[in-house]
């Protein structure tokens, strides 16, 4: 009965509301946008290259949040995407960067789904304890196209040799372990013939360059020059990585949607607040109908994005057949709405919105980065259509 209620009703449970309050308190006590600016400008020496705080990561682990998705046997809480979504949304409101997407939703989930018992034991307890950060290295080109993988894994006597280059590896340059997608058969674009490998970034032949993104997060470019890996580093079945990654990308898309809900909600609320204090022509600009109507449209779009995201998170937790389509629907919608609100926010703030001193610009930048990550609106609308048979 409890499970049924949790998985279907599109309202947060009491427990989820309590969790929301804790995350909100945590985020506002630990972080503000001044810190983001400092990361970017290299002022906070220890954390600047990282663009997030490992101390916060450990604190979040103590609170159980890094282990929300993982079973208790690995030190996790055994909860669901709905709960992790609450955490991501609240971090999104504060623009607080943490490696939840890279470590938990991408690499960690892939190992939970496809890894051997030894591999799970090697990483999952470490994630739950806040000791490990992982990255999933899969992307090679600008637009998200998960099976467009050219990087080769060539079979040799006692394992494989990896050769190729990965880009946009979220939190890749400081990850403790890399999960790498490479082609063991077939041509770029084919779902089949892909295999996952778990390796230490210190392995000879791995060259990692940190790249800075406009939202003050890091993503690495990683070159693999004939990197030797053993058979025990293969995660899941050879040539069949797409089967592991399909649901992983769904979960990650829904989780990122939840973060986007936080980002776009905060941006919308800040814009509304500005409309209520900014005076021009002797009147509050929020009294102008040209702005009121656009604010009303943004409100509608936001509400629809919230509903879609809640539905996707619950469908994933219930293991429903329509979960992939809902995850795509949520990512498409939140991407589009975050972009809409981002550009409207800048326009409504006017000149001050163009300055680095005003914080609203950081929300628009994060919205754009999160939109592009794991597929934008166009990608997910196309996938939604395909999954719905047209």
């Amino acid at each position: 009965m409890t499970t049924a209620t949790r998985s279907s009703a599109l309202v947060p449970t009491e427990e989820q509301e309590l969790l929301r309050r804790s995350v909100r308190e945590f985020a506002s006590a630990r972080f503000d946008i001044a810190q983001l600016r400092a990361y970017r400008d290299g002022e906070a020496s220890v954390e600047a290259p990282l663009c997030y705080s490992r101390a916060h990561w450990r604190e979040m682990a103590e609170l159980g949040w890094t282990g929300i998705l993982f079973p208790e046997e690995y030190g996790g809480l055994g909860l669901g995407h709905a709960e992790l979504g609450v955490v991501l949304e609240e971090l999104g409101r504060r623009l607080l960067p943490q490696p939840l997407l890279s470590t938990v939703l991408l690499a960690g989930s892939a190992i939970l789904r496809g890894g051997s018992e030894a591999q799970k034991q090697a990483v999952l307890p470490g994630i739950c304890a806040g000791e490990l950060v992982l990255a999933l290295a899969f992307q090679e080109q600008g637009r998200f196209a998960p099976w467009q993988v050219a990087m080769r894994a060539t079979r040799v006597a006692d394992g494989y040799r990896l050769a190729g280059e990965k880009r946009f590896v979220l939190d890749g340059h400081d990850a403790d372990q890399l999960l790498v997608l490479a082609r063991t058969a077939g041509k770029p674009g084919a779902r089949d013939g892909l295999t996952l490998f778990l390796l230490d970034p210190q392995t000879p032949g791995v060259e990692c360059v940190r790249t800075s993104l406009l939202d003050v997060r890091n993503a690495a470019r990683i070159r693999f020059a004939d990197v030797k890996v053993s058979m025990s580093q293969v995660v899941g079945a050879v040539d069949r990585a797409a089967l592991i990654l399909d649901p992983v990308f769904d979960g990650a898309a829904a989780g990122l949607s939840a973060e986007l809900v936080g980002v776009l909600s905060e941006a919308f609320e800040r814009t509304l607040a500005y409309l209520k204090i900014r005076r021009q022509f002797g009147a509050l600009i929020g009294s102008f109908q040209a702005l009121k109507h656009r604010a009303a449209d943004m409100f509608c779009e936001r509400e629809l994005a919230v509903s879609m995201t809640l539905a996707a998170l619950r469908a994933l937790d219930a293991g429903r057949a329509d979960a992939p389509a809902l995850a795509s629907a949520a990512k498409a919608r939140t991407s589009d709405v975050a972009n809409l609100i981002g550009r409207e926010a800048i326009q409504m703030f006017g000149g001050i919105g163009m300055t680095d001193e005003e914080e609203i610009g950081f929300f628009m930048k994060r919205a754009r980065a999160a939109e592009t990550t794991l597929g934008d609106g166009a990608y997910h609308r196309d996938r939604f259509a395909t999954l719905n048979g047209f």
Partner: protein
Amino acid sequence: MNNKTALDNFRTDIARWLEECYPAVLRPLDVESGMQPEAVVPETIRNAERRWHRLRAEQGWLAPTWPREYGGAGLDRDQARVLAQELRRVGVRPPPISAGLSLLGPVLLQRGTPEQKLRHLPGIARDEVMWCQGYSEPGAGSDLASLTTRAVPDGDHFVVDGHKLWTSHADKAHWMFCLVRTDPEAPQHEGISFLLIDMKSPGISVAPIRLISGPSAFCQTFFDQVRVPKENLLGQLGEGWTIAKQLLQYERQALGSIGRGDLGRAQTLPELAKQELGSEGVRIADPVLRAQVAQCELDSLALRLTMNRSADEAGAGRGGDHIASMLKLYGSALTNRRHELMMTLLGADGLGWEGPGFSDAALRITRQWLRAKGNAIEGGTNEIQRNVIAKRILGLPE
């Protein structure tokens, strides 16, 4: 006996009753065949539907939560939910839209005198008395409060003179609930009162309105020295605007759900696209129009989920009825977008007006495209809905 057991028993009782009483001939009806035009529905089915509608009304199941003395079934919210689930499970067709049931009823229940409730509610609940709404006037559309239809006191009556527009079904209705100006000197919003008017009263005349989409249920209604007993005033003198606003929220809820009603009917949008554009495998062949279909389908899903969320929030005792403005705004805009896209898909096949040479489906889409324009106008234009959202929900300054 705990609440859950009681509810389970209640469910069993309803299921048993439906098993016994729901006409067998209606059972195989699914959503699609339910949408067949009236003319091709065999007479037996129509009779059965009429019989069933009557039976349902007698059970008080048109207004399940109203007290029994007013023709309802006296159910609490949980029971009403169980009833709705059971009716849906059997696939019972929804009752025809009734202004009395969905608009006036809730307001009467809240504000009517005991005499007014006893007199009017049972007729509404049994769907025996048909009501129409007298709000808009030629000079009072979006600016409804500028209405000029006057009601002048004369002994124990009001004398009503004026001209109402968009009075749906006024040619068939037995009664009208009507906004009239009772105090021309008072500030605009305070001089309005809410009258219940018997349509048989001498001095009332009704003319139908033809729309861009063809014949419609809309009428205009003329009042020439119409005498209305003072006991037919709902609420206090001058309270009409407050009551009207409350009732408008119910109307927006009803209109907002129209967008949802269109889904699942007859042919879906992707099916129409495949039929008109061809397909490659299962994909719609034209990639540009396919993207537009996907956007429309995705937005429909988002609207449906938001309606579900709104219901879930109400069930959890959260949220408010102001959400109706949002659903109405987005729903009617989306309905328009869908129909624009359907017209694009049809191309010249969508240009037919009537007669041979065009399929019934195409002719229907064309008329629906035209009629859908009105969805964004009636019940408060979408511009008015945006004003309401900006003021009531977002708290933006005047």
